[in-house]
């Protein structure tokens, strides 16, 4: 068993270099910090890898063997490395001589923190150890239980793993792995890779994916925050995110919502950083993250994509964007997601979540109290959404002073009302089962909004 875990760790590690190089390549304005590149790279590595595996199998007709997996994990190292070399005439090789001095600097930095910040950080780490330990216990000992896991996400992974291919016969039960065929395959193919590395499709190994997503989300959130933001705010915000009950719960639920929430966060927050003047690189990263959100869940294509198209057009019209940047942003996003969108189009997969989707406008007045209760009262999100709404209602005037915060608030509001509007005003909400989960996808952005609001308008608060 320990050997299997070691193999899984190696399988995850091997996806990092290609992702890091992609993050490095995107960062032409040299805006990303090392920690941000490090963890965003991992995320991009996972998603790029699964998309390459999919393309190799579906378009290249290659069965899923070691060659395809290893090829998909390393070939882009050369591709991205070459492009970096063209741009910079050098390669970002790791230099072991820099490692010890770097560690010393980090240690020195930590020593310079005040006692309150150190205590908050210690508390964050301690609570994370407890949470991760509890999730690990669940994943290790409790079999796959939740509906969409055995009906879709894990079923598809198991079928693809067993057949060593994505089943393409649409007349068969297990077309594209079974379940709802329009669901994208990012999460499932990552689980195939974990099973392949472990040597067998076992729940305790493949369900580790959710815990990896949880940790990646927290790390990306923490390291995405610019250095000028009060470190204590940053730590408290990361703790707040880590402790959101439903979000934490999904660290041991084998669904794809958590993975999707990371891409959604990156898509929107990157444009926020771009508007805040942190560099063009963020604008390009946003496009790539949007592309991978489409590769992760259908909300990416049906809701986030149109919202981002309109918001980028708006920024273009008000001259916050140059046309050249706008064009390349969408070009690289389209290039990234092309294999999946082409496949969807050719095979006429539905855009919406169900396979036989209807989309009629109705008024589900009976759902309103449940929607309000789920978002505000049930402790799914602690008091996050209450705080966001009160901040906007009572402190909305302040937002006039910051375009980037206006953008973040506006996007959050548009996506929030789109999500919940679909539940209240269409016949897509069969049983409200997705209600809390779709609002969960927005929580990293909501936490970020509160943190940046405080930073922008109340940064002079000294808590120590």
């Amino acid at each position, binding site marked *: 068993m320990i050997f299997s875990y070691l193999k899984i760790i190696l399988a995850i590690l091997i996806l990092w270099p290609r992702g890091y190089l992609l993050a490095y390549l995107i960062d032409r304005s040299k805006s990303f910090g090392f920690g941000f590149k490090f963890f965003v790279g991992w995320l991009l590595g996972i998603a790029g890898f699964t998309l390459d595996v999919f393309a190799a199998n579906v378009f290249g007709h290659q069965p899923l063997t070691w060659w395809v997996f290893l090829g998909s994990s390393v070939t882009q190292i050369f591709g991205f490395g070459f492009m970096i070399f063209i741009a910079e005439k050098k390669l970002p090789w790791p230099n072991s001589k820099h490692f010890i001095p770097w560690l010393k600097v980090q240690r020195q930095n930590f020593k310079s923190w005040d006692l309150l910040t150190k205590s908050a950080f210690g508390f964050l780490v301690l609570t994370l150890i*407890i949470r991760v330990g509890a999730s690990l216990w669940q994943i290790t000992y409790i079999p796959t239980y939740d509906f969409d896991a055995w009906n879709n996400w894990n079923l598809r992974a198991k079928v693809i793993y067993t057949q060593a291919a994505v089943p393409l016969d649409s007349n068969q039960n297990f077309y594209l792995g079974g379940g709802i065929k329009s669901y994208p395959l990012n999460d499932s193919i990552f689980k195939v890779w974990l099973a392949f590395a472990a040597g067998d499709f076992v729940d305790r190994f493949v369900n580790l994916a959710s815990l990896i997503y949880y940790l990646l989300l927290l790390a990306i959130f923490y390291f995405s925050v610019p250095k000028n933001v009060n470190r204590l705010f940053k730590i408290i915000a990361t703790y707040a995110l880590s402790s959101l009950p439903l979000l934490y*719960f999904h660290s041991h639920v084998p669904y794809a919502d958590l993975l999707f929430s990371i891409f959604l966060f990156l898509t929107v927050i990157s444009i926020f950083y771009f508007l805040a003047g942190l560099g063009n690189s963020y604008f390009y990263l946003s496009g790539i993250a949007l592309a991978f959100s489409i590769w992760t869940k259908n909300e990416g294509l049906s809701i986030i994509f149109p919202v981002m198209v309109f918001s980028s057009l708006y920024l273009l019209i008000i001259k916050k964007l140059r046309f050249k940047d706008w064009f390349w942003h969408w070009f690289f996003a389209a290039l990234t997601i092309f294999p999946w969108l082409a496949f969807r189009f050719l095979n006429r997969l539905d855009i919406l979540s169900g396979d036989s989707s209807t989309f009629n406008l109705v008024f589900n007045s009976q759902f309103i109290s449940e929607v309000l*209760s789920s978002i505000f009262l*049930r402790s799914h999100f602690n008091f996050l959404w209450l705080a966001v709404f009160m*901040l906007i209602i009572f402190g909305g005037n302040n937002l006039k002073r910051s375009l980037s915060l206006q953008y973040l608030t506006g996007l959050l509001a548009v996506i929030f009302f789109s999500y919940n509007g679909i539940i209240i005003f269409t016949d897509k909400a069969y049983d*409200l089962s997705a209600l*809390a989960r779709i609002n969960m996808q927005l929580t990293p952005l909501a936490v970020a909004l509160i943190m940046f609001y405080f930073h922008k308008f*109340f940064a002079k608060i000294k808590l120590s």
Partner: protein
Amino acid sequence: MINMRFKFILFFAIFISVFLASHPVWAEETKVIFDFPSFVSGQAGETWQIFNNSDEGLYPQDEGLLLHNDGDAYLIYNQPFGYDQFNNLMIELKVNRPLVITLTADIQTLAQTSFEFQRALDPSDDYQVINFSLRHRFFKNVKEFGINLHSAGASDVVVKQIKLEAVGAGIVKQAVSDYWRMAPYSPYTVNLFPAPLIFGHPGFIVFIPVLTVLILLVIYFQRWRKWALILLVALWLITDLRMAYEFLNYHLVDYRSYLSPSTQVKSFRNYGDFYQFADWVESHCQGFSNFNFYSFGSSHLPRILTYLVYPLDVLPSGNQTKATVVYNRQDIKYNDQDSRLYNQQGPITDPGEIIAVYNDDSFIFIEQ
């Protein structure tokens, strides 16, 4: 700023008034509604009814009244009241088998209950006291309520006393106690939690006014901003602690019901022994690639089995294939005369044999 402060103080005053108006303070009062003397005098006989039990009599025993419970009896109290009158129900009883007591408001009409009105009781020679807080929306005005006495098989329940009480103090204690009461794990927990409740309402309803005041302080009152922020963090910590406790409780339930017991008795959440059954099917279905599946219980079982035993293909019942797997179907029997499986409509297979038995109603059948 003055204008805003005025608005804030006005808002705060209105909130406090509304809050206090909706929380009356009771005088201490008690009403014994069930005990031996009241039955002897005949007073209680008209207000109580025994339901869903073959023996509708009560027999004196140990200063109380004995009920021979078939396993699912109800005691129904048919006098109306509201929680403004009585906000606590005290039951003093003893049982000879493990028992689950459930209180149901308006049992003959709306039948409203929840996990807050359920208590498990271990057998004991001494009387045990159980309290149910009635300060709950189900008991705002009830016409009657029922006490369900559920045991696995017949049990003897001796009730010494049942009292309705108006408890003046202890609202805060009750609110805290309600807030920390754990809901049982629900199969829908991946989508929504059974929120922590206070008096039958989501606990956050109580927090909203406090939260509003604190956020207003943060936004408009620089002087109090620091302390308001600290209190907001504290409020967040309380919810975090509460929900962490809930998760811990889920883990404990899984440990006690699924991990710790032996294979024969372990039960996995709301699917009972189905996961053990799936393992058993996988190990006994060597040599064929698919089977018809007949099951009883959750409609999810065929899809769960599809995932658990893949690449074995689980077919809907009635397909043309040699193997048939049956799970907990009392209506499907093997007929020795013609070696076929029958349900109530007639034969469902060609002749064959049962090759493995999981339990009396679950087995694997192969056609010749």
